[in-house]
């Protein structure tokens, strides 16, 4: 018990004496734990809002799209001038009857005609599925108005996420298929995933389809709107024939996925696929597609928390290494009065573990508080996600992560310090820089600032490696952001006059915030590393000035001591960042242009040099004589 009290007392006193370092350590670990908590808090965040939307709209359990023969290119019409042939009226009636009489179906609405048209407004051109509806409420899937009124002749109701992407509101004028319409209302539905993911479920555009980034209308993202049945039928054409949508309610909603399989099984009403039934989606599939906005965020946050953890480890290792050097005499004292190496190591590690626990708590609190900012399920669902789910597993994982970061960074230095000679520890002689003969010889051929910088970096190689690792992690984050930007611009971005993707917008914002956090941590790290170098080499720097180096040359040397390890770190960040993006997003990827990467490398190195120059200039303000006399005393 006495040992525990001693360890706790020494740890607390030390934290009080070095508050600035403790705060820096806290910040580094808290950044890592907060991003982890945010990532974990996003799990299942859209389930509740989707259920709320289903309840409010009497959402269907199955949504069937049918009525055109899409053939072997199921869902994609590659003919630029002619739409897929519609099925006959008899086939349509037969399919409707077969579907509404499936075992387990208790109610239905439709079939509703769906026109595949182009909406134009505010200079934007977007493909839209315009579903024809009665003006009276439907028994199954009656979209809930969030503003305005329901469909009327010449009036269109637009799905809420789609309306936000178009920046249209009630009363605005749009054209559908060249015909003028007034926006009568904005609504949400549980029968389709919110824009732009409607196309992942049942939104089939039967008009001519082209790839994104072409000058024609991109049909990758199809919007959803409702018009009167008469208006929908009037917009049909041979190039874009009407399709139909049927909403089914089941006795047991949980069986919806099984029924989908049954429909498309051999002998089922939807087999073979050359018949007129083109898509059948369960409410579970729609719910999942509705959650993609948040799922993408979660992928980004998980990748980001990995980077933040790595950066935290590097930062804590630099800070902890410096603190170990200051505790040499304390180690000697403890050993001189009878402490075992184990107890000495425990004293050295205890304060970092205590700070890690505080950081874990801070991460949980900040993550819980900030989660509502990112758990917004999007405009396409009503209701909120409710308080984020901070489960026991989340708490356990966060605490374990914080402790692991602290241990990984401090255990080895603590054990080495505990095993050092008691006599030399009591003498508290400064640890001399390591001799690297090859680097010393190389530096003799270089200009004075590089000569000094190389010798400083070589003298503390572990710190240089940690600095490089920290820059590599930050660079990876920046490159991942650039890769995302390049991918969006090339593959996912809208062509001129087309609507942006809310998922892309949200991911961009999330990546930007994460990159700012990483950069902030890296700035902290760079300044701390440079300051540690200044302190470590103050005698050598004073001596160099006594022998003829100018203060500017010495400051430049300190800056070079940080920049030189940053070069391989920045370059390593390029493949790391691209790999990280690939691992987080298994879809399309475009490598950023070379000049983007070069600019990122140069700006990073310039930032490192600038940040290092602050402690360097502060360090050379003290007269050399003072330093040398202090060292002699």
């Amino acid at each position, binding site marked *: 018990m006495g040992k525990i009290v001693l360890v706790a007392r020494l740890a607390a006193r030390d934290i009080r004496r070095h508050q600035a370092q403790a705060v820096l350590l806290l910040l580094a670990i808290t950044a890592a734990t907060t991003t982890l908590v945010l990532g974990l808090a996003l799990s299942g965040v859209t389930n509740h809002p989707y259920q709320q939307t289903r309840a409010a709209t009497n959402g269907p359990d199955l949504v069937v799209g049918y009525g055109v023969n899409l053939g072997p290119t199921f869902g994609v019409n590659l003919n630029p001038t002619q739409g897929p042939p519609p099925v006959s009226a008899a086939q349509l009636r037969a399919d409707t009857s077969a579907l509404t009489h499936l075992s387990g179906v208790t109610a239905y609405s439709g079939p509703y005609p769906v026109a595949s048209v182009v909406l134009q407004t505010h200079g934007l051109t977007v493909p839209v599925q315009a579903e024809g509806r009665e003006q009276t409420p439907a028994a199954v899937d009656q979209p809930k108005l969030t503003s305005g009124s329901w469909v009327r002749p010449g009036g269109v109701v637009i799905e809420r996420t789609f309306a936000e992407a178009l920046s249209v509101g009630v009363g605005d004028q749009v054209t559908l298929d060249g015909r003028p319409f007034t926006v009568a209302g904005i609504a949400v539905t549980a029968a389709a995933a919110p824009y732009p993911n409607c196309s992942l479920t049942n939104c089939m555009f039967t008009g001519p389809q082209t790839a994104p980034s072409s000058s024609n209308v991109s049909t990758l993202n199809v919007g959803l709107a409702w018009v009167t049945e008469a208006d929908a039928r009037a917009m049909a054409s041979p190039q874009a024939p009407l399709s139909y949508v049927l909403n089914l309610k089941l006795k047991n909603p949980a069986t919806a996925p099984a029924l989908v399989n049954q429909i498309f099984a051999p002998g089922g009403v939807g087999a073979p696929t050359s018949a007129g039934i083109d898509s059948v989606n369960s409410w579970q599939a729609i719910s999942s597609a509705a959650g993609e906005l948040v799922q993408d965020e979660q992928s980004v946050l998980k990748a980001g928390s990995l980077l933040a953890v790595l950066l935290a480890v590097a930062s804590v290792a630099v800070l902890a290494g410096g603190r170990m050097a200051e505790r040499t005499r304390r180690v000697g004292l403890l050993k001189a009065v009878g402490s075992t190496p184990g107890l000495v190591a425990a004293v050295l590690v205890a304060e970092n573990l205590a700070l890690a626990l505080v950081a874990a708590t801070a991460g949980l609190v900040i993550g819980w508080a900030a989660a509502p900012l990112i758990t917004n399920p999007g405009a396409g669902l009503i209701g909120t996600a409710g308080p984020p789910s901070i489960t026991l597993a989340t708490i356990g994982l966060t605490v374990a992560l914080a402790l692991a970061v602290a241990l990984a960074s401090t255990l080895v230095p603590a054990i080495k310090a505990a095993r050092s000679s008691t006599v030399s520890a009591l003498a508290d002689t400064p640890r001399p820089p*390591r*001799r690297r003969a090859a680097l010393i010889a190389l530096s003799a051929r270089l200009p004075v600032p590089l000569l000094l910088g190389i010798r400083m970096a070589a003298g503390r190689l572990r710190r240089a490696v940690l600095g490089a690792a920290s820059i590599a992690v930050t660079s990876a984050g920046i490159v991942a952001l650039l890769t995302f930007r390049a991918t969006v611009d090339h593959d996912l971005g809208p062509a001129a006059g087309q609507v942006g993707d809310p998922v892309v917008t949200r991911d961009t914002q999330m990546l930007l915030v994460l990159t700012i956090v990483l950069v902030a941590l890296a700035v902290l790290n760079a300044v701390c590393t440079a300051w540690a170098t200044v302190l470590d080499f103050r005698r050598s720097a004073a001596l160099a000035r*006594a*022998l*003829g180096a100018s*203060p*500017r040359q010495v400051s430049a040397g300190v800056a070079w001591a940080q920049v030189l390890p940053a070069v391989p770190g920045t370059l390593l960040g390029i493949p790391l960042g691209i790999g990280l993006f690939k691992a987080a997003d298994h879809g399309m990827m475009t490598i950023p242009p070379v000049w983007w990467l070069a600019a990122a490398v140069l700006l990073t190195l310039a930032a490192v040099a600038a940040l290092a120059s602050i402690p360097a200039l502060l360090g050379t303000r003290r007269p*050399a004589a003072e330093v040398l006399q202090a*060292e002699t005393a």
Partner: protein
Amino acid sequence: MNTIDAGAYVLRTRGLRKEYGREAGLVRAVDGVDLEVAQGETVAIMGPSGCGKSTLLYLLGGLDRASGGEIWLDGQDLTQMSERALARLRRDAIGFVFQAFQLMDELTAVENVELPALLASRSPRAARKRALDLLEQVGLADRARFLPTQLSGGQRQRVAVARALVADPLVVLADEPTGNLDSAATVEVLRLFDQLHTAGQTLVIVTHDPRVAATADRMISMRDGAFTDQTMLQGGTSGRLGSLAGLEG
């Protein structure tokens, strides 16, 4: 008796002051010092600990800024110089020898000696050659590749002297060069200073060791930041005082 050519002063000060603190806490470490050092002269400044000898030396070498007065080195006013200009002066015209040697522990003897030449942007080859020549001069040619921790105290100080001479300076400033040495090492270093004196090197040595002072042409006593008296030493190291120092004439 040595004569001093009044028109050939390498180093001159007028009313030199260095103060710390303010008002009731004001400390005058150097208090109105007038000094003139001629070319080829060896001047020893003696005084008790804390009298301001080392502070004076650092002011003369431009390592610290004076609070008042003038310092002239080879006709240049140090008090008006920028840090950059002072650094250039230390590279080209001043050599320092410190009490605690102040060698870089991770550099070998020859790497320590060539350092000022590299800082002056001389070619590595020329710097290395000069360093080896100087180590030979101080009797340490066979220790060129040794680290400081592998050298005795006297050897380390001889390496430091060699380093001070690399730029062929106008003046060598030595701060208690034998302060950390035993008797035998002290004699080694004294012999070295004697050689430098004979070769015409201008030296200003701060010491509280009379054996070191005995090697000089002139000894100045210092107390409480000011010079109190001055003694011209007859015969220098070849005289009676020189034999007392253990140096044979």
